[in-house]
């Protein structure tokens, strides 16, 4: 690569600078127009645009927290439901429990006696 400070380059740059096209003059009072735009307070339309953008922000801003809250509710409901199913059920009425236990006890005893009866009768027959 050639060095950019070579004589050829200097001649080219000199030529460019000498015959560089002159910048056309302003056709509008640019300075005053810019200063007027800067100094102008917010118009109704820009207020409206700001309001719209803030609304847009609000709608999008609420999307994330509402999604989080909904998903948290679903998860907690699920966990609560699972816990309810797996936890042992404790009888609250002790009388009912006693009755049930006595019944099942005698029930099993009766089955056992019946079985013994059958086997002893069978043996005697033999």
């Amino acid at each position: 690569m050639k060095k950019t400070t070579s004589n050829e380059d200097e001649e080219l740059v000199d030529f460019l600078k000498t015959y560089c096209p002159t910048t056309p003059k302003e056709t509008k009072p640019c300075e005053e127009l810019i200063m007027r735009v800067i100094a102008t307070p917010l118009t109704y339309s820009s207020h409206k645009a700001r309001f719209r953008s803030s609304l847009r922000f609000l709608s999008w801003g609420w999307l994330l927290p509402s999604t989080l809250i909904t998903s948290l509710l679903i998860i907690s409901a699920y966990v609560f439901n699972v816990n309810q199913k797996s936890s042992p059920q404790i009888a609250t009425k002790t009388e009912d429990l006693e009755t049930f236990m006595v019944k099942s006890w005698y029930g099993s005893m009766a089955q056992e006696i019946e079985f013994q009866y059958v086997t002893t009768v069978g043996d005697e027959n033999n």
Partner: protein
Amino acid sequence: MKVLANNHGEMTDLELVRKCQKGDENSFRLLYQRYQHKVRATLYQLCGSELLDDLQQEVFLKTWKALPKLREAKYFSTWLYRICWNVASDHSLARKRDHHRQVAQTDLVKQKSRNHHQTDLLQLHYQELIQSALQNLNLEHRAVVVLHDLEDMPQKEVAEILSIPLGTVKSRLFTARKSLRQFLELQGVNL
């Protein structure tokens, strides 16, 4: 409105930028007056005369809006040229979409050159040649030539403005100069 306190003229860019960041419009007017010729010339070399006033206004309005976000106020001029470059790039992209405009623009330049009967014909011829030679380059190469060779900016600053490495600036400058030289030689200009 143009009458300002005398001490405003002696203020540095940094001081003016700080005042602008606090909302001082008069300080911005001074910054505008300080840089508008350079910005306009750069925009003209990059984009041509079409919509030049609008582009100039766009650069300074964007500058005013973005000034509160400028942290490194001492690099204001580099930052301003970067905005200038962004506006020129956007304009170039928009113009590519509408090719007919480009043709109309070159016609306008030629017509304007023809109208300057009073000035030196040779000078006008060379100006027209350089304008065509610059337009012949793509925007990236043109920007390097305009900023470095015409605006006398150091290569490092050009790299910062265009957000490219220093090596890329050097290679683009080499390619652009070679292309310019070839174009001018084809038109009968021996350098």
